[in-house]
């Protein structure tokens, strides 16, 4: 129960009209086929339970007469049991498949969104990794258990009715208060536990916040006071949670009591009926096999509902995660753009960038860059240099003014994406050879072209040498060169350079300068930097 948390964003979501349940159903719909399989297999389980109970009921009364008489019953019981195990395995596989597919679909939407949204919007990491995981249990356990719980108990009772209508009536009579109690407890506990979830989540966020802020806490030597405050919070919450759990456990205890009671009632009824000592007359004559059958079936009537109760928290977890997921799962691939054929003119007119958190990164910025010109944007970190570059890619929100490339306004949904060369501090790496890493930006480029780009960027040596996922196999300087080689290979006539030499020592920076000059020749280029030496490469320097 404790392990479920949701992001703070989910709690603060102002869209109170958002229904997590409806969203989840909509996301599960495309995988209804897989889910239906899992449900069918789960429901079939009760049929085999009937087989097992029937086998026992046939075998036990004739046990004393030797094994030959009991053999058919025993065989039925054995086969039913093994088949039950097999069926449960198949159901688990089908459920897992449905969960896997649903996770994958939602995750793909979120991941796409992360690459198309402006940076600085809510971090999608936690929802994408953990939030999505809750969908698994939702589909593979909750949805299947819920569907099975509405059908399987009735099938079990119907089977009992064939053997002993009175016992079936007893089971049905206890099933009704059981289900009503379950629904009521579920609703009451649901509201209570939602509050509890959010309290737990606040504690978790607070804890996490203090861990993140440790450098400050250390600097102010507030470790002890912070620890004490956290301890008090945790203990208070533990007390409160314990109270909530008591209520939840009490309601489930009452339900379990009905289960145990129904087994006891059926046993006692059958006993008295078989003895012929019932104080009232009943319209059925019971024999031992029938009595044993209903006795073995009694727990099975409630089993699906208990499984549903056990899976209930899967639903709560998924519903808690849903708002954050829904907010992120709206990634749309940017529209394809026509390639720039020649070095373009850039024009920024009284541009303002204001991020959703209210921070104004760029204010009243105007600049015209002629075709083939190189302009360096110089300024301290936080001055908005990168935001200006991001404007051209639609990665920063343009809140005032206009950005034009060759006279056409740059739409803010993708910007010039797909037509620009970019070289930054941390070129991405993909496991594979160096050549593969360069060639990614222009599929279909020849080995010769790749090698030429590498050489121009100052990357010498084996083009086939392997690079791992973290960029192992490349030095810091080489990694920048990889970015330059990509920019050269892409042959895009507009180049954006984001701090191309940051964190390099003076010698490495100096070594990189000729390559940068190489790259900018014949292209329109914007460089965001705070290095005077990089800025000196530009035709013009603009201070931000």
């Amino acid at each position, binding site marked *: 129960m404790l392990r479920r948390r949701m992001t703070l964003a989910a709690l603060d979501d102002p869209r109170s009209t958002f229904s997590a349940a409806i969203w989840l159903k909509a996301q599960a719909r495309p995988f209804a086929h897989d889910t239906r399989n899992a449900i069918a297999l789960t429901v079939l389980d009760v049929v085999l339970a009937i087989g097992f109970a029937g086998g026992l009921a046939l075998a036990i009364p004739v046990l004393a007469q030797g094994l030959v008489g009991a053999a058919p019953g025993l065989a039925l019981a054995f086969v039913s049991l093994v088949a039950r195990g097999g069926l449960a395995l198949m159901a688990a596989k089908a459920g897992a498949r449905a969960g896997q597919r649903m996770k994958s679909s939602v995750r793909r939407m979120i991941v796409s969104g*992360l690459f198309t949204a402006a940076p600085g919007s809510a971090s999608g990491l936690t929802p994408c990794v953990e939030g999505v995981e809750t969908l698994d249990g939702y589909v593979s356990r909750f949805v299947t258990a819920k569907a099975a719980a509405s059908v399987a108990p009735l099938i079990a009772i119907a089977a009992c009715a064939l053997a002993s209508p009175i016992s079936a009536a007893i089971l049905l009579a206890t099933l009704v208060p059981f289900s009503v109690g379950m629904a009521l407890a579920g609703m009451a506990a649901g509201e209570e536990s939602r509050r509890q979830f959010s309290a737990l989540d606040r504690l978790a966020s607070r804890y*996490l916040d203090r861990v993140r802020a440790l450098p400050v806490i250390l600097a102010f030597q507030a470790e002890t006071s912070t620890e004490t405050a956290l301890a008090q919070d945790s203990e208070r919450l533990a007390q409160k949670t314990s109270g909530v759990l008591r209520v939840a456990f009490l309601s489930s205890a009452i339900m379990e009591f009905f289960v145990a009671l129904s087994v*006891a009632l059926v046993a006692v009824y059958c006993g008295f009926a*078989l003895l012929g000592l019932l104080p009232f007359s009943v319209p059925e004559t019971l024999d*031992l096999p029938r009595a044993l059958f209903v006795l073995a079936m009694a727990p099975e009537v409630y089993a699906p509902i208990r499984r549903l109760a056990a899976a209930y928290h899967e639903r709560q977890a998924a519903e808690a995660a849903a708002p954050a997921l829904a907010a992120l799962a709206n990634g749309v691939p940017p529209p*394809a753009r026509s390639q720039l054929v020649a070095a373009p003119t850039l024009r920024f007119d009284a541009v303002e960038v204001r991020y959703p958190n209210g921070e104004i990164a760029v204010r009243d910025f105007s600049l015209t860059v002629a075709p083939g010109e190189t302009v360096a944007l110089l300024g301290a970190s936080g001055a908005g240099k990168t935001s200006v570059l991001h404007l051209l890619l639609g990665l920063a929100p343009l809140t005032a003014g206009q950005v034009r490339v060759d006279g056409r306004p740059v739409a803010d949904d993708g910007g010039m994406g797909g037509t620009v060369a970019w070289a930054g501090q941390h070129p*991405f790496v993909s496991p594979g050879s160096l050549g593969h890493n360069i060639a990614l930006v222009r599929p279909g480029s020849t080995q010769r072209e790749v090698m030429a780009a590498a050489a121009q960027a100052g990357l010498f040596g084996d083009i086939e040498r392997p690079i791992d996922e973290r960029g192992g196999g490349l030095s810091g300087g080489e990694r920048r060169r990889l970015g330059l080689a990509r920019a050269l290979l892409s042959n895009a006539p507009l180049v954006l350079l984001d701090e191309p030499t940051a964190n390099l020592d*003076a010698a490495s920076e100096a070594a990189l300068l000729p390559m940068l000059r190489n790259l900018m020749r014949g292209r329109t280029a914007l460089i965001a930097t705070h290095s005077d030496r990089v800025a000196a490469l530009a035709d013009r320097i603009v201070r931000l």
Partner: protein
Amino acid sequence: MTPFEHLLSDQMGAQRPRLALAAVAGVGVGAAAVILLALSGWFITGAALAGAAGLAAAHAFNVLLPSAVIRLLAIVRTAARYGERVSSHDAALHALAGLRPQLFRGLASGPPARVLGLGGGEAASRFIQDVDALQTLFIRRSAPWMAGAGAVAGVALGALASPWAAGVILMGVAASLAASHRLSGTLGPAGRQRLAAMSGFQNRLAAHQASAAEFRAYGLEAWAVADVMRRAERHDALKATVDIAPARQGLVQMTVTGAVVIGVAFSVQGVELPLAALAVLAAVMGLEAVGSLTLAARDRGAAEAARVRLSPWIVEETQLGASLGSDRPLPAWDGPDLSREARLGITGPSGGGKTTAIERLMGLRGAAQANAGLRSRFAYAAQHVMLLDGTVRENLRLAAPDADDETLWRALEDADLSDRIRAAPQELDTSVGQDGMRLSGGERRRLTLARAYLRDAPWLVLDEPTEGLDAGTERRVVERLAARLDRTGQGLILVSHRPEPLSICERWWTIGAVAATIIPTRERRLLRA
């Protein structure tokens, strides 16, 4: 035992009464479930035989005692289940509540470099999810007792019918336990693989997200999505394997149960029928009790993995003590001599090492352990603004836990933030939001300034204190800072590349490879405060 395991076993010890209660209740649950059904079978069969033998036999059959015991067992089982769940969850809740702050302290007293390198995602998975995963260690602690009691009850009831039946049930229990053990053997590595795949996916996503601009520029978003998704799907496949494993085990379990039923049927030949029925049902229920260990095995794998990952984050208490002395020698400092009255301005190009130099001076960097003695001499407002997710008051009190409101307002005044906070409806109790999101960038920075002002330390260290402020605000902040320093007599170390704040410094020191050093103070000196 690692220090972390010590913490864990301390909590285990502290929760012993609750865990013991849970175990006792678990024994009740396990035994009652088996006895209830077996006794019912015995009762029905006996009743059927007696009923068939005629009215006299039926009247001679004792119905009252068995039916009373059956009802009693129903109540015992329910009550025991309630008791077991309440005490095991209580134990888990309180143990985790105790563990969280201890972990925080362990982390806070570790090497500062590690704290600084701890990313948000990493922190979340270690200190929230992994700690939560540990609760299984407490909640599932009663599972073996429950299963054991069920197994013992099954074997004992089988023995009532025939020793052979007991033997067969015992063998079934052993086979089931062996299969369960083998499952946890395979689940361990599979679970670790899954976790590794998950962090592979998480890291890849974080890395690619940082390169979003590059992907966008080249139109490689689809490639990046596919690259991330490949890893996500690898994780999902491993997770499915782990999730399906208990069902796989269930198939083994069912087969064993079926075989045991047949075996018991063999071994009760010649035994009177009610006892035979009792033995068969006891076998079925006893094995079901043992089967419940499968889920415990699955959850234990996750808890063990969490334990392994958390261990390295906690250091020995003894190592801590050694670094807490306040009279330890101060680290060497490349900068100018620092005397109490000094106002030193540090400037130089970005990336030149200004921040690194002052962080080293304050013992926030480089030292193997957090050095409390050194830190007590500095009040620091870092360049990277870092606020607690709490109220303005909470943030300020971090620096001065006992300060009254008047003192807090004064510091806000000096940071030119008092008007803004006074205008907010909740004043000092205004919530700043996560990372100070509800404040503007400039307000956030000024709040960290006010916080640093509040700390009673000989040196005020401000890194880029006016970055992101407009010219008017910058001037006011700098003027009030100068006035405040005159009043308090604190020393100032100010890092900036802007002329305005540097203007109140008496001396400047330029760090960086390119530009010339204004005041070439090269001697290594120890800081005397």
